[in-house]
């Protein structure tokens, strides 16, 4: 159908890119995201990764996410900068004990008639 690999391409793939049984990592998967607040209609059972499978993680390096990583041709989006600023706020709060600086900072502005 014109979309699949030609013989030659298949050989290159098989030799250069394909993960094999002999490799330490034989498979890389990106786990299905789940919406915590909404019950997924097609609830995917959380299968345990097989030996030799490497699951990509979005939170393994969460403590690194409070600063923008370098980009190439595509700049960071607004929502990415929002994410980074939230991660920075979390990072700052991580070191707090007891009182929360965010509370202390914002509480003076609370007018109860705004919320009741």
């Amino acid at each position, binding site marked *: *159908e*014109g*979309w699949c690999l030609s013989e030659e391409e298949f050989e290159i793939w098989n030799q250069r890119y394909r993960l094999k049984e002999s490799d330490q*990592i034989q498979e*890389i998967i990106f786990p299905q995201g789940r919406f915590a607040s909404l019950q997924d209609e097609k609830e995917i059972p959380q299968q345990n990764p097989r030996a030799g499978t*490497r699951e*990509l*993680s*979005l939170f*393994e*390096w*969460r403590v*690194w*996410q409070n600063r*923008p*990583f*370098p*980009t*190439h*041709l*595509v*700049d*960071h*989006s607004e*929502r*990415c900068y929002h*994410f*980074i600023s939230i991660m920075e706020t979390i990072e700052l709060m991580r070191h707090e004990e007891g009182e929360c600086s965010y509370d202390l900072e914002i509480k003076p502005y609370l007018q109860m008639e705004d919320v009741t």
Partner: protein
Amino acid sequence: AAFKKELVSQLLHLHFKEDKTKVSGDPLLLMAEFLKIFVREAAARGVRQAQAEDVSDVDVEHVEKVLPQLLLDF
């Protein structure tokens, strides 16, 4: 290197409810270009991370570090 139009069409049809849904040439070319930009950005950011760690081999963990922000940028 680039994504073949027919390959992009197959990928899109994985998600279409109707098999008969047709996608003409231009949207396929646009989608192929999008995927190419996405892959090159992922690869280039992985390279930047490996270089920042002073290693010459880009490994999974370099891709994983840049992954959250990459996905938010696309």
